[in-house]
Structures are given as structure tokens and as C-alpha cells.
């Protein structure tokens, strides 16, 4: 009995060890490299950032685009949230869940999709050019701030929409009725009642959007180019193109500091949101009555649907149509190994690589995630320790992908941990990012298993492993499936970290798409479209699976 218990405790230490080795250690390596390059205290990296107008501009641009993206996203999500909380309309819950689709789409896919829609070679330009017989594309959005902002809104709209909607739906409309009886109307209700009451949800979603867009990598790299480098892109250039590792480390440290501050504010707000005194959750939605309400509803939903689906449809259309004719040419090209190809192997092999990595990631993340969840929710664990463990395991999610990958290449390069050329780096990196998803998916269910149920089972004669098998497992199963699907999807789409640690001959699908996009020629572009379409279908299928399995109670994001 006691031996089993000690073994169990030993198991629980595995995720801690994993986190220490592959997350905290690389992070420390970044700290070390930025503060003590050449093994002596030297802040040249930071002085370079502060004194050079170029790097200052990078920082200012990073903040500026994040602020703009946040303001635009919240500005669009607010009326959307109003529509979803106040009105009843057909397919409402379906629309709300489908709006979350971008959340699981890989950045590379989304960037390709927007390029297929409004890029120089995109559908809109093709149509305009043939309609007005133009020589050049009339819409030049690629390599502009606008397209970066558009894609950022695409990504984050649903996060803000969901957060604000779920908060809003819990507020009784009687509070507004009370304000009306007390003499408030129109804008006064918005200004004195609605907006102040939504403030925690608006602030929390704004900070989350800011965090996501501040560390935006794939979108800015592919659609913006070097003249629009964010900190994240700059770290990538400094580390992999210029090989100025101390500077890259200094930039990483700067970014980590900003992210840490933001996360701190975010978790505080989260606590405020969940502790707010919720009024009765009476159904407050109703059918739109006035013509103005109907118009408002239609314009909102119409914009949302067009904005969500046209890029994705454009991607599939462009991958299947060449010069007006249907073709599978781009897809078949994926299997051939053309001589001038930038890849060392047929593109199709990347699909195999990605699938292998994703399966390994899923298994590893499930095992480690379950152990982590027991570690956090465990009854043998001190409560204060558990309170620290929870955010500790969330950290990899809050750390940018590029920081993660960069940490890997500078930390895991000396024996006994020389993994630079190891295939395992990719699934390890993916597992780090996937564990928080698994933990979040099963933790609520794990916490809700009443102790008395397990005690009853024990009194009825069930040994510990039987209790786990017949009580814990069935109750956790839905969460486990959701977590596994998340882990698989995250691994398939991960781009930033993979770019650092992938070996040239075992690229993943996002990396192949990125390489193809960087090459001239319609066939390379077409292959990128085809590969993106495939990756999008995998992500969308996972998304549907998650949405179907996930019931109201599962997952606490």
C-alpha cells in the first residue's frame, strides 16, 4: 500500500521534471544569454535595443499594432455580443460555436487563406482585374498594416465575442429595467449601466487579445514581411538569420517581461469576473421587434459570417481552380519531387511527419496532462502549492512560440542534453504547449468528482485502481477526448517553435507551407494553397469534434 503510494507520488513528479527540463531550463538559458553573454555580466543587448532607433521602432510598432488590433476587435465584438445576448434567432448556438473556429486554425493557414482572398494573387483581385481588364492587382494589401490588422481581428473576434457574451448573458436585464424606471434611456443606459457592468469582461478580453497580437508571429512574418517586424519576428530574424543570439535573448526577455505583466493583470481580472454577483440567469434573449433591431441583427451576423467564411472558401476555391478551370494539379504536385523544389522531399511527406509528431504529442500530452491535473487537484497536495502549480503549468501557453523554440536551440545544445539534431524536439515543444489544454479540459471534471463517491466505492470494497478505472475514468472521459483533440490540433498547426527546431529534412505541414509561400511561381503558390486547405480541413474536423463533445460544463478557458 505505502509502496504504491510512493510510486504514485513518483509519477506525479514526472510532469514537474518535464516542465523543469524543457521549459524552465531553456527559459533560464535565455535569461543567462541576455544578461551574461560570454559568461560575464554584459547588458549590450539591452543597450542596443534602447539606443538603436530601429529596435525602438520594432517595440513601438509591436505595441501599436497590438493596441489597434485590440481596439478594432473589441469594437466589433461588442455589437456582436449584444446581438447574441439580447436576440433570439435561428441557428444561434451553432453560429456562436462556429465563430470560434479561427481559434483552432493554424496561423499559416489563415495567412494563406487571406492571401488567397485579398492578396495580390487572390480571388478579389482576379475578379476585379478580369472585370475591368486591369494589368495589375488593384488591391494591394499584402505587406501593409491593414492586412495584419484584418487577420488579427479575424483571429480574436470570437474570443472577445465569447467572453463578453457569456458574461453578459448572466446579467439580469432587470438591472436595465431598474435604470429605465429611474429615468435613464438610450445612451445613458449604455454609459451608466451596460458598459460599466461589462467592464471586467471587456478589459479581460482586451488584455487577452493584446497578449495574442503582441506575440503575433506567423501572420506578421508571412503577410507583413520584415518592414513590419514585431518583437517576435525580430527575435526570429536575429536568432536564425543574423545569428545575433545575445540580442535575440534580450528581445525575448523584454517580451517575457511584458507578457508576464499582462498575464498578471489578466488572472486578476479573471478572478473578478468569476466572483461577480450573478443575478438570476433567466432567459433574456427575445426575437427582434423593430425594423432597426432586425437590420442591426442582420448586418452583424452577415458581417460575421462573410468575414469568417470567405477567406476559408477562397482558400479551397483557389486551391482547386487554375485560370478558371477546375484542377487537382496543385494537390498532385504535392506528391512529386520536382528538381528545383525548395524542399528536400515531396511535400506530401510533411503530412506524414506532421501526423507522426501530432500522435506522439497527443499521447505524451495526455499522459503528462492527466498526471499534472492530479498534481494540481490532488488531495495530498498542500493547497498553496496547488495554487502555484496551476499557473506554473499554464506558463508555456503564455510564452510565445518563438521564445520556446529559441530557448530550445540555445539550451539543449550541450551534452548530456544535446538534442539539436533530434527529431524529438518538435513533439517535445508541441507537448509543452498542449499540456495546458489537456489540463484545462479535465480539471473541472476532476475537481467535481465528490470525495464521498470515491469513499463509498472504497467502503464497498473497490481497491484504488478499481476506483480510478470505474469512477475517475468514466467521469474524465469526455474531458480526455477534448484534451486529446486539442493536443492533436495544436501539434498539427504549431508554427513558431517548429520553425526553430525542425530539421531540414523532416519539416511539418506549416513549415512546408511557409517555405512554398516564400518561393516564386504559380505552382509553388498553388501547392501552398493545397497544403493549407488540407491542414484547414484537419483543424476544422478537430474543431467540430471538440464542439460536439464539449458540454456546457467542460473546459474552463
Amino acid at each position, binding site marked *: 500500500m505505502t509502496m504504491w503510494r510512493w510510486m504514485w507520488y513518483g509519477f506525479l513528479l514526472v510532469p514537474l521534471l518535464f516542465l523543469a527540463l524543457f521549459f524552465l531550463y531553456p527559459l533560464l538559458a535565455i535569461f543567462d544569454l541576455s544578461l551574461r553573454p560570454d559568461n560575464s555580466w554584459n547588458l549590450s543587448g539591452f543597450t542596443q535595443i534602447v539606443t538603436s532607433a530601429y529596435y525602438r521602432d520594432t517595440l513601438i510598432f509591436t505595441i501599436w499594432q497590438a493596441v489597434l488590433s485590440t481596439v478594432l476587435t473589441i469594437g466589433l465584438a461588442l455589437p456582436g455580443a449584444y446581438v447574441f445576448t439580447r436576440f433570439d434567432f435561428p441557428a444561434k448556438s451553432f453560429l456562436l460555436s462556429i465563430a470560434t473556429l479561427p481559434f483552432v486554425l493554424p496561423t499559416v493557414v489563415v495567412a494563406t487563406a487571406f492571401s488567397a482572398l485579398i492578396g495580390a494573387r487572390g480571388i478579389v483581385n482576379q475578379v476585379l482585374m478580369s472585370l475591368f481588364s486591369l494589368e495589375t492587382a488593384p488591391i494591394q494589401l499584402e505587406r501593409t498594416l491593414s492586412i495584419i490588422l484584418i487577420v488579427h481581428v479575424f483571429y480574436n473576434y470570437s474570443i472577445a465575442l465569447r467572453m463578453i457574451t457569456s458574461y453578459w448573458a448572466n446579467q*439580469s436585464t*432587470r*438591472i436595465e*429595467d*431598474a*435604470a*429605465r*424606471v*429611474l*429615468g*435613464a*434611456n438610450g445612451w*445613458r443606459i449604455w454609459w*451608466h*449601466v451596460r458598459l*460599466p*457592468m461589462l*467592464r471586467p469582461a471587456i478589459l479581460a478580453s482586451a488584455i487577452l487579445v493584446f497578449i495574442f497580437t503582441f506575440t503575433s508571429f506567423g501572420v506578421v512574418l508571412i503577410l507583413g514581411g520584415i518592414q513590419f517586424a514585431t518583437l517576435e519576428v525580430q527575435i526570429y530574424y536575429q536568432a536564425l538569420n543574423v545569428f545575433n543570439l545575445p540580442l535575440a535573448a534580450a528581445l525575448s526577455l523584454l517580451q517575457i517581461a511584458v507578457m508576464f505583466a499582462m498575464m498578471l493583470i489578466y488572472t486578476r481580472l479573471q478572478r473578478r469576473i468569476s466572483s*461577480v*454577483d450573478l*443575478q*438570476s440567469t433567466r432567459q433574456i434573449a427575445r426575437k427582434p421587434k423593430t425594423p432597426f433591431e432586425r437590420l442591426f441583427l442582420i448586418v452583424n451576423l452577415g458581417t460575421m459570417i462573410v468575414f469568417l467564411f470567405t477567406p476559408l472558401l477562397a482558400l479551397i476555391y483557389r486551391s482547386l481552380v487554375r485560370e478558371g478551370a477546375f484542377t487537382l494539379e496543385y494537390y498532385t504536385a504535392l506528391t512529386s519531387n520536382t528538381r528545383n523544389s525548395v524542399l528536400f522531399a515531396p511535400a506530401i511527406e510533411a503530412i506524414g511527419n506532421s501526423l507522426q509528431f501530432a500522435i506522439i504529442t497527443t499521447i505524451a500530452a495526455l499522459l503528462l496532462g492527466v498526471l499534472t491535473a492530479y498534481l494540481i487537484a490532488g488531495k495530498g497536495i498542500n493547497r498553496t502549492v496547488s495554487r502555484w502549480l496551476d499557473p506554473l503549468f499554464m506558463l508555456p501557453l503564455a510564452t510565445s512560440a518563438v521564445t520556446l523554440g529559441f530557448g530550445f536551440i540555445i539550451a539543449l545544445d550541450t551534452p548530456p542534453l544535446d538534442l539539436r539534431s533530434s527529431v524529438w524536439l518538435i513533439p517535445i515543444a508541441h507537448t509543452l504547449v498542449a499540456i495546458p489544454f489537456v489540463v484545462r479540459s479535465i480539471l473541472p471534471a476532476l475537481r467535481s468528482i465528490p470525495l464521498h463517491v470515491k469513499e463509498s466505492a472504497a467502503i464497498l470494497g473497490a481497491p484504488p485502481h478499481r476506483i480510478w478505472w470505474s469512477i475517475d475514468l468514466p467521469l474524465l472521459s469526455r474531458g480526455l477526448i477534448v484534451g486529446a483533440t486539442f493536443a492533436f490540433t495544436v501539434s498539427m498547426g504549431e508554427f513558431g517553435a517548429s520553425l526553430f527546431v525542425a530539421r531540414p529534412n523532416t519539416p511539418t505541414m506549416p513549415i512546408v507551407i511557409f517555405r512554398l509561400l516564400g518561393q516564386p511561381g504559380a505552382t509553388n503558390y498553388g501547392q501552398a494553397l493545397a497544403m493549407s486547405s488540407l491542414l484547414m480541413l484537419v483543424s476544422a474536423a478537430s474543431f467540430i469534434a471538440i464542439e460536439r463533445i464539449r458540454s456546457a460544463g467542460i473546459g474552463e478557458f
Partner: protein
Amino acid sequence: MLTIQNVSFSYDKTPVLRDVDLNIVQGEIMCLLGASGSGKSTLLRLIAGLEGDYIGDIHLNGQSIKSIPVHQRDFGLMFQDFALFPHLSVADNVVFGLKMKSLSTIEQQSQVEAALKLLGLAKFSERDVTQLSGGEKQRVALARSLAPQPRLLMLDEPLGSLDAGLRERLMIEVRDIIKQVGLTAIYVTHDQQEAYAVADRIAIMHDGNIVQVDTPQNLYQRPKTPYIARFLGLKNIFSPSVFGEQLHTDEKADAILLHPDGLSLSDEGQLQGEIVERIFRGNTYRLSIKIDEETLVFNIESNQPVPDIGSHVIVHVEEDWVIALNST
């Protein structure tokens, strides 16, 4: 003061109010008493202006208020869940209505202070409303409705979410405060004890109709329909033919009520039966007496000898307390 004339209202084509007529006099507290779903809260929302599109009319001091939007009616409305603004302090909740009236800061302050003082909330003024107890929230909600000095105060189950002990204490307090300020009030409740304690007059609502308007005592002693009698918890409702011979009841009535207040055990009486149940309830015993096929239920004081179960007894019925009930 407030006249409701032939008001009908449907919600999604389901009729909720049918031809409601009611007249409320200046300075009185009118209780709308009824089961849930009887339309009492809807009637309140209609008067407040929170629901529109009704048939009929509502007049305030002779003027129709149909076209006046909610925020210009100068009414007060207190909700069951209090609907306090969770982002504002106690004082800021109370001052809200005064701000909307664009009163000067000095006037706002003095009126808020007066309202808080009236409800014993002076020391709570800077508190966060989310941290108050149920009873304290109730006071803040009442203070917020009173502060702008409304022409009419409406209270929708104002004690509904509080526990029984607190409710009993607060119902008297609410009545005292309304009377002290001298307001006209409409008070919605489903609890008859609360209505008896608070109201000057009670309007019983049933299925979207007002079926009887009377003082609490009259209502209890002289209910008009079988539904009202049952709703008020009165037993002993029979078809008029049952005791027709013994009591000479009005055969044309739909039903008769042998009001428990007019029943007693006696040596002489009109009815004879057997005690089948005897429940001790402190100062009274509740007796069930089987007479032929029917059962009569009433209380007798417990400080006198009470016959055992199975005893044969004679029941005396005072003729004043035999009440004819008619369904319409």
C-alpha cells in the same frame, strides 16, 4: 389616482391580462395578490412602461400614460432580485435616479442622505452592494426607489427572495416606511400573510383577471368565489345541496363555504359527525370531522378539553358564516 381601464395584454399571442379594471386611490397601498402566472407582475411592468402594446388604457390623475416612455414616468419600481447596479456603491445606487433627473449635487446629496437615513443605511453608504446580505440589499433597493420621490411606488415581490423570519419583520417595516413617506404604492406578492400585513386593499388576480378587490379583513371573511376561498387557504367548500337541509343554504350558489371562524363544538348544533383526525398545533388543535361523506376542518383552542379521535361530536355553525360562493 391611477385608473386601469379594460387593459388586456398578450405575450407571444398568449393572453396574460384580460380586461383588467382597477382603481388605486391616492396614498393607499394596493396589493396585487395571486398565484404565479396570474399576471400580477406583468400588470406591474405595464404600469411601469416596461411592456407596451396593450389594449385599454391606464390613466394617472386623469391623463393617459400610454405614450410616456418609461424613463419619464417618475415611478419607482423595486424588483424581487433587487436589480442593484453591481458596479456601484450603495450611495451611488441610491443617487442614480437623482442623477437622471439632473438635480444639483447639493440636492442629490441631501436626498440620498435622507433616503439612506430613513432605511438605516447611513453607515453603509460607501459599501460595495455585492457584499451586502439579502436584507441589506432589500433596503438599498427600497432606498433607491424612494430617493427620487416617485409619484407611484411599485414593489414586485420585494421580500420574495428573503427567508421567512426576515420577511415577517421587514413587511411591517416596508409598510411603515411607505406610510411615513406618504406614497401611493402597488405591492405584488403571492403570499397572503404578507398581503394582509402590508395592504390597505387587496386585488386578487387569477388567470389575468382581477377577481376581487377588498380590504384584507373583508377578503378573508367574505371571499366571493370558490377559487379565492381556496387560494386564501380556507377549507370546507361544498356543493350547496350537501348540507342544504340542515343549514338552509342558498341552492342557487355555485358553492358554499362553511367559514372555519363560524364553526365550533357544542352541545347543540346542526351537524353531527366523528373526529377522524386531531393535530396539535400549539395554541390550537386542528380537527377533521367526518359528516356523512364530507369532512369538515376547523381549529379549536387547545386550553380546553378536546375529544379524542373516534368521538362523536356536534358541530355548531353560525349562520352568518355560511357564505355563498359564485364562480363568476
